[in-house]
């Protein structure tokens, strides 16, 4: 292998001018055929999203080893560069360095919507593919959308509409009063907007609606207000450790109003623990999905790390597999070609019952979601299997787009 490469390179060196002039060889291809393909992974590993970032990193290591063991992409190995994205500013600096100095073929990762945006701006400017695995805000798919950014993570609208169906089926919306708590930053505001639209269009109203500072750890004052307001449903638009804190204290105060939320990660339910975890929540994926793909992933992850994967782990796993498939099928690592490949409606195995695809209008992955409901304490067998799942949403006879935002709700115009 090495020998033939060296020969080819030597040949090219000699005939560079002539070859280029004749258009017989493109240096990009020569370069692309040598050495590994680099992927840059950025995600918060410290701070309040750090617990989820850890799952992302574990999954990234797993999937890269898996792809390399299977022969890599176009016969070339993947070389993975991993960094803590810390905050939007640092994320942007690191993305720039990965693209400019390390020449990564694409950037995968993120959880914070704010950092997603700064990375996307760099990716767009440098014409490099960025696959978002954890930023939810609808704004990233509408006002802030970028042609080089694709979203494996579901948008807030998909979260709201998938768990919203469970609330509708349980008669929790029409004529009912909700009490909502919302994280006081971009993600929470975006989610509240979508949730409110859903509630009002289905005939519900707010019994109360509080913003929660992101560094709040104690919810007792809110719990007293909730008890006083006697709502029909308590809904949370919170993120990270705040969901865990809330659930633990909700149980502590003995409140029993039905409860649920529009943003969620299974790690937070596991952290709240048996008996404290209550309510109905939306997830992009969970470890109890019974497709062969999901169970294979769960088995490989559990074998390596001694615990089942969290939904964030699914994000990196699927994003990297999608990237590998695209490179293999489009036979290039050129970002623009890959963007065109994705926009062409290619189908991907996303470990669910139906394959997924990227919607051309906003680059959102169209795929099934689930609503999970906490099991009562006496039905729980271990610390991981603490919820039951709805069937995939949307159902088998519906378009996958049924739960995504409509053009009226959020529309995107790409600039090239």
């Amino acid at each position, binding site marked *: 292998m090495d020998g033939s490469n060296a020969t080819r390179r030597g040949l090219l060196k000699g005939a560079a001018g002539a070859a280029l002039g004749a258009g017989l060889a493109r240096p990009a291809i020569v370069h692309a055929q040598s050495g590994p393909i680099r992927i840059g992974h950025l995600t918060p590993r410290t701070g309040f999203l*750090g617990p989820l970032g850890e799952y992302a990193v574990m999954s990234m290591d797993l999937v890269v080893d898996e792809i390399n063991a299977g022969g890599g992409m176009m016969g070339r190995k993947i070389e993975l560069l991993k960094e803590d994205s810390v905050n939007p500013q640092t994320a942007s600096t690191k993305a720039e360095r990965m693209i400019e100095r390390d020449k990564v073929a694409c950037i995968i990762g993120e959880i914070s919507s704010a950092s997603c945006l700064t990375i996307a701006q760099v990716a767009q400017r440098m014409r490099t593919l960025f696959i978002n695995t954890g930023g939810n805000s609808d704004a990233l798919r509408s006002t802030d959308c970028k042609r080089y950014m694709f979203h494996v993570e579901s948008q807030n609208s998909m979260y709201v509409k998938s768990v919203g169906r469970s609330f509708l089926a349980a008669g929790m919306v029409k004529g009912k009063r909700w009490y909502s708590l919302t994280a006081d930053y971009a993600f929470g505001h975006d989610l509240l907007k979508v949730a409110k639209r859903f509630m009002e269009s289905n005939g519900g109203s707010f019994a109360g609606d509080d913003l929660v500072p992101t560094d709040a750890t104690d919810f007792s004052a809110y719990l007293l207000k909730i008890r006083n307001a006697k709502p029909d449903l308590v809904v949370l638009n919170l993120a990270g450790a705040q969901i865990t804190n809330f659930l633990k204290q909700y149980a502590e105060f*003995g409140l029993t109003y039905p409860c649920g939320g529009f943003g969620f990660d299974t790690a937070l339910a596991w*952290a709240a623990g048996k008996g404290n975890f209550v309510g109905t929540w939306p997830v992009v994926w969970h470890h109890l999905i019974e497709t062969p793909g999901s169970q294979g992933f769960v088995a490989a992850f559990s074998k390596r790390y001694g615990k089942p994967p969290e939904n964030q782990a699914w994000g990196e796993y699927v994003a990297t597999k999608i990237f590998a498939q695209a490179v293999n099928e489009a036979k290039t690592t050129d970002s623009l070609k890959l963007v065109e490949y994705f926009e062409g409606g290619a189908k991907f195995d996303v470990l669910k019952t139906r394959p997924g695809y990227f919607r051309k209008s906003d680059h959102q992955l169209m795929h099934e979601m689930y609503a999970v409901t906490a099991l009562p304490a006496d039905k729980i067998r271990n610390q991981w299997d603490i919820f039951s799942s709805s069937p995939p949403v949307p159902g088998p006879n519906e378009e996958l787009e049924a739960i995504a935002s409509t053009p009226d709700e959020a529309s995107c115009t790409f600039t090239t």
Partner: protein
Amino acid sequence: MLFLQQLLNGLLDGVYYLLIALGLSLIFALGGVVNLAHGALFAIGAYLTLVLTPYLGFGGSFVVAPVAVGLLGVVMERFLFRRFYRSDPILSLLLTFGLAMVAEQGLRMIFGAAPLSYSIPSYLRGQVVVGDFVYSFYRTMLLVVAALCVAALWVLLQRTSFGRVVRAGVQDPDMVGALGISLRPYMAWVAGIGIGLAGLAGVLLAPIYSVHPAMGAEIITPAFVVVVIGGLGSFWGVVAAALLVGLAKGTMVGLGYSAFSTAIIYLMMLLVLLFRPRGLFGERITRFE
């Protein structure tokens, strides 16, 4: 009625900061060390509870974990803090900042970044009902424990010979030395007690807060705000400030301005720093002015 409940709850909310703020204040007053690692030691207390519970139960951890964290404090004092009492405060600030990061990352390496689950033991669950006032039994117990700690610390500082030496040391360590009393062993005790209190706070909050490596960083800032408002080194100042901070937060949530419930405590700190830099009850400490 709801508002009254909010006021009472606000007072209780302040108690969480109290245990951490008291230790911070005490260690600073005696040695001049601003212990930024205090939050990390609180987190270690919480993680120790998780580790010890399978063997000792919550009750056993409640006794053992704070003592273990306190001993860690004594070790830190003996090998690290001690070198910085007479030097520029910025050095000890850097030292404890570094320690906080090492401890947090250490927890992340040992236990993983994912939060771990822990619940209130069954015998402490339930609600206290007094007329219209319904409140968590666990939190009521927490208040009792915190009040007992405050009382015990007050007795120790005000009514024992140990406390007299410590208080004299706060005011004028050189004079204490001139009288032939070495402050060194006292420093170790004070660090042990102050840090042990942070460990105790970790034990008490593990059942109701998310247990994750950055939990210390979350609580250290409001605890500092309490110390600054109350006055560094002032016992009752810290107690009053903790209650005041809790009350202000509770009032903001109660009135429907929850988005400002954190901002209000920083505003309070700003006002105190502008108009009374030594803090509400802060005494004039000769060597710092």
